[in-house]
């Protein structure tokens, strides 16, 4: 049996193992892997995600048992210290010795730390490993505790440096980027595009300092400032160095392999070093006088080394290495492909720049205008994949090459045609070298039936993930060409979309979950389909959540929002945010009596937190006796219609926004929908009610109301779009009935109105024609359905208080009246909060 030793368990080392076990016979070869980090290989490309979720598992390339399951001996936390080429052995930091037949060096690189005076001070970090990131996070927490406006600088404005700037910004520090060159991302971007990126990043609050050479790091023990020159310094409390990489080539040096002048172990196109039994791959390998810091070439090197060791001498590294990249930096698309900076003797460039929208696009075309040589995209890289394919496959350019970055300005289809027009050999996933033919054939052969199966079968899209949209398009188009339907079904229990199920339930007049399961589903149901069916019942019949409480989502089941410690919050409805002093007093009394934490919400009402399950009916009885009703804050349903004070008090008001907001909130209260709904009414265009940030917003203008739809705040804020202008109250309600009912019928589960409009073919113009011009001949039916729901409204908390048999679910124990005694509150600013979580 031959022994192969891999030194290094980073992404490329891991890829070598994966490819090796797929091709080599276990009887012939034994694979031993050394990693000096405490954990097995992880995805360093997506390291900044660790900051958001702190989930090291999510970054794992394979779980620890993957190695043993595949008979690979993984030795973590152990560094290889010496190679003895004569005896073909290596020794490790714990003085163990291992023999090899083939040795693969995948030691990667280390961050380059420039020799600046003071670089050893506390608070100076590099950005490379999970441990580095954890160190930065701990230091940032310590800083913020002492100094709320602490600043952090990143030395280096390259790709990794900007990632690091995002990380420090997310840690709550004021971010600064210090770059030696005159532009950001000097290796990928030209001066103009770099400027566009800079303006965008500055608008996001990142401070950029260019043309700065750091002479010294100042501070007593910890860093306090960076000095660039006389009288030129920047006060900072933390510094992250991201000034490039240096190959970890010391093993090669000490055992006498051929090295590059500036480091790196020299390899030939078989990935062999000057010792034919020793291979080097990834960032330690110097190939074509270059170190390649990207994943894709590293993976290709791993593949070549595997083939060479297995005796396939024809597998050689390509001579031209594609350095194209696309990434999302701090939410900004940046891509470059082929020859981004092209000398004038090779061709011409076509440029488009719009700094106000932070957009820059450049393509380089040959002198005859027939082939694409490369390009740069900043701000919008949606077309990167297809442009990259055109470049790689030499696809002829359209007559007006500028259409590629400007879009066709005449009527008619896309400039690019369909993904299906690409040749079969087109490489779709460059990380894993998967071609269009590879992807499509798994579908046509019947081996795979959907995107996730194709991804696990071909590995396409599992590297950087940039090609996923293309993979998904190819899969769907191929399925379609085979006459197979592509749809998003609800779950294993129902082979239908929500819209289809909505139709079935409506036509067959089904009213319980088991009727629906018997009619068109299977099994017992689950946490996905049960609440979905409950929501459809509510939208069709306005059933309250009391009717079949066991199929309701967590919060609907108990008509309250479950909080961190298993207690609940209580939100009575306060339509339009208008409330009498007397009612405010009642809320205060209830809060005091049941020891509830009280907070004003963003929707102009009051949230009472910390109610125990057993107390909910008593709390609500007191509120209902005082004239309140459920606020449905727990449901996928209408929350609030926010208002400004309007013309009744405001000297600028054009109309009574409070009165109209109250009317609208009372009309649609209790309305269940695919996702929560929020509304707003502003009395003038100053828009104090932020109505355009809502699913529906109404703004008073000269001559009536303007109606806007499909906006939202939250993670992806979107302004609502104008649906109708200068309409009166009745027309506004009529249009809203139609719009809301059409959304409720056709949206996918948990899809808010903005996302729904994005998917609606024809967009807002199509919605206008349905709602205003009644192009689908549905208006009357939609209005009638909505009126039915409005008429059927009942406050579900009032139902519970009036009907004792509905109260049994509000008990923590079935066999005792005691409350849950594990709940612990701790004081906070004169009120209470749940004890912090200690685990996970």
């Amino acid at each position, binding site marked *: 049996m031959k022994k192969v030793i891999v030194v290094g368990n980073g992404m490329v080392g891991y890829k070598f193992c994966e490819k090796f076990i797929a091709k080599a016979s276990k009887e012939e070869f034994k694979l031993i892997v050394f990693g000096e980090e405490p954990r097995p290989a992880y995805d360093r490309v997506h390291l900044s995600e660790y900051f958001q979720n702190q989930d090291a*598992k999510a970054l794992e390339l394979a779980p620890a048992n993957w190695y043993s399951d595949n008979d690979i001996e993984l030795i973590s936390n152990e560094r290889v210290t010496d190679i003895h080429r004569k005896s073909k052995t290596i020794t490790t930091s714990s003085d163990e010795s291992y023999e090899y037949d083939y040795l693969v060096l995948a030691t990667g690189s280390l961050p380059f730390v420039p020799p600046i005076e003071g670089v050893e001070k506390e608070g100076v970090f590099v950005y490379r490993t999970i441990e580095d990131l954890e160190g930065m996070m701990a230091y940032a927490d310590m800083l913020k505790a002492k100094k709320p406006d602490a600043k952090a600088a990143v030395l280096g404005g390259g790709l990794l440096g900007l990632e690091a700037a995002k990380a420090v910004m997310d840690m709550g520090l004021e971010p600064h980027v210090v770059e030696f060159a005159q532009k950001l991302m000097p290796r990928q971007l030209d001066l103009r595009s770099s400027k566009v990126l800079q303006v965008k990043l500055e608008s996001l609050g990142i401070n950029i300092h260019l043309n700065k050479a750091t002479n010294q790091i100042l501070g007593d023990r910890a860093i306090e400032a960076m000095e660039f020159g006389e009288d030129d310094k920047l006060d900072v409390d933390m510094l992250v160095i991201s000034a490039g990489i240096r190959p970890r080539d010391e093993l090669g040096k000490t055992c006498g392999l051929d090295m590059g002048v500036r480091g790196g172990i020299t390899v030939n196109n078989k990935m062999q070093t000057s010792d034919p039994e020793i291979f080097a791959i990834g960032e330690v390998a110097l190939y074509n006088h270059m170190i390649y810091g990207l994943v894709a070439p590293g993976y290709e090197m791993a593949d070549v080394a595997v083939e060479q060791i297995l005796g396939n001498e024809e597998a050689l590294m390509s001579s031209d290495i594609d350095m194209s990249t696309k990434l999302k930096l701090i939410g900004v698309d940046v891509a470059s492909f082929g020859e981004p900076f092209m000398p004038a003797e090779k061709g011409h460039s076509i440029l488009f720049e719009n700094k106000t929208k932070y957009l820059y696009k450049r393509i380089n075309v040959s002198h005859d205008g027939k082939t694409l040589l490369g390009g740069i995209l900043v701000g919008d890289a949606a077309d990167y994949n297809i442009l990259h394919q055109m470049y790689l496959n030499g696809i002829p350019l359209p007559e007006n090459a500028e259409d590629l970055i400007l879009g066709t300005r005449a009527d008619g289809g896309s400039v690019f045609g369909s993904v299906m027009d690409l040749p079969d050999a087109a490489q779709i996933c460059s990380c894993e070298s998967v071609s269009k033919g590879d992807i499509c054939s798994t579908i046509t052969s019947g081996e795979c039936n959907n995107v996730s199966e194709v991804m696990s079968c071909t590995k396409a899209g599992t590297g950087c993930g940039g090609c996923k949209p293309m993979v998904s398009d190819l899969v769907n188009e191929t399925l379609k060409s085979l006459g197979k339907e592509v749809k998003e079904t609800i779950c*294993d*229990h129902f082979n239908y979309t929500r819209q289809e199920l909505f139709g079935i339930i409506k036509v067959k007049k089904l009213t319980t979950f*088991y009727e629906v399961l018997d009619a068109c589903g299977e*099994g*017992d*149901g*689950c*946490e996905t*389909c*049960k*609440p979905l069916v409950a929501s459809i019942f509510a939208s069709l019949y306005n059933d309250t959540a009391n009717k079949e*409480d*066991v*199929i309701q*989502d*967590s919060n609907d*089941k*108990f008509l309250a929002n*479950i909080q*961190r*410690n*298993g207690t609940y919050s209580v939100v009575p409805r306060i339509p339009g945010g208008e409330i009498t002093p007397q009612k405010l007093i009642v809320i205060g009394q209830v809060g005091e009596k049941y020891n509830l934490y009280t907070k004003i919400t963003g929707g102009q009402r009051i949230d009472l937190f910390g109610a125990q*399950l057993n107390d909910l009916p008593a709390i609500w009885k007191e509120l209902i006796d005082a004239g309140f009703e459920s606020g449905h804050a727990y449901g996928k349903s209408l929350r609030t219609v926010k208002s400004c004070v309007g013309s009744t008090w405001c000297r600028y008001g054009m109309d009574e926004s409070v009165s109209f907001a109250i009317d609208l909130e009372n009309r649609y209260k209790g309305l269940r929908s695919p996702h929560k709904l929020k509304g707003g009414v502003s009395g003038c265009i100053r828009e104090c009610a932020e109505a355009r940030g809502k699913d529906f917003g109404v703004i008073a203008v000269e001559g009536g109301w303007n109606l806007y739809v499909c906006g939202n705040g939250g993670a992806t804020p979107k302004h609502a779009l104008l649906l109708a202008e200068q309409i009166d109250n009745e027309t506004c309600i009529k249009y809203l009935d139609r719009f809301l009912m059409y959304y409720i019928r056709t949206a996918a589960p948990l899809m808010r109105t903005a996302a729904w409009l994005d998917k609606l073919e024809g967009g807002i113009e199509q919605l206008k024609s349905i709602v205003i011009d009644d192009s689908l001949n549905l208006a009357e039916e939609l209005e009638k359905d909505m009126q039915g729901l409005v008429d059927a409204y009942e406050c579900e908390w009032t139902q519970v208080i009036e009907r004792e048999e509905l109260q*049994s*679910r509000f008990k*923590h*124990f*079935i*066999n*005792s009246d*005691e409350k*849950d005694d*594990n709940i612990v509150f701790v004081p906070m600013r004169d009120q209470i909060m749940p004890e912090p*979580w*200690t*685990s*996970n």
Partner: protein
Amino acid sequence: MDTILTGLQPAFQPDQVSVWFKAAKVSDFPKNGGACVKYKDKQIAVYYFERRNQWYACQNACPHKLEMVLSRGMIGDEKGIPKIACPMHKKTFSLVTGENLNGDLDAISIYPVKVEDNFVYIGFSE
């Protein structure tokens, strides 16, 4: 939190039961839903799958954040395996083996259940 953890025990078989605790009448339990039973200082979640006419019981604490909430979750099946989804973050657990079906949390403890004379009993081995 220590008391919650030490109160738990590994899954065991009905023949190891030393105490059958008479919890409540069958009619007290919701159909196709869950309820929480108090036994000494333990909290046990009990579920009734009406259509299969099957009963299951498990610890009430979700191993994710150790809150006493599993009885308030939603039941269902995954490829035929009866399961419970925690109301907090929708972590799902097999009611047969206790294993976490959509993650790698620790398995929950499962307890045997029997019904006699319209009463529900939960088995403990102490």
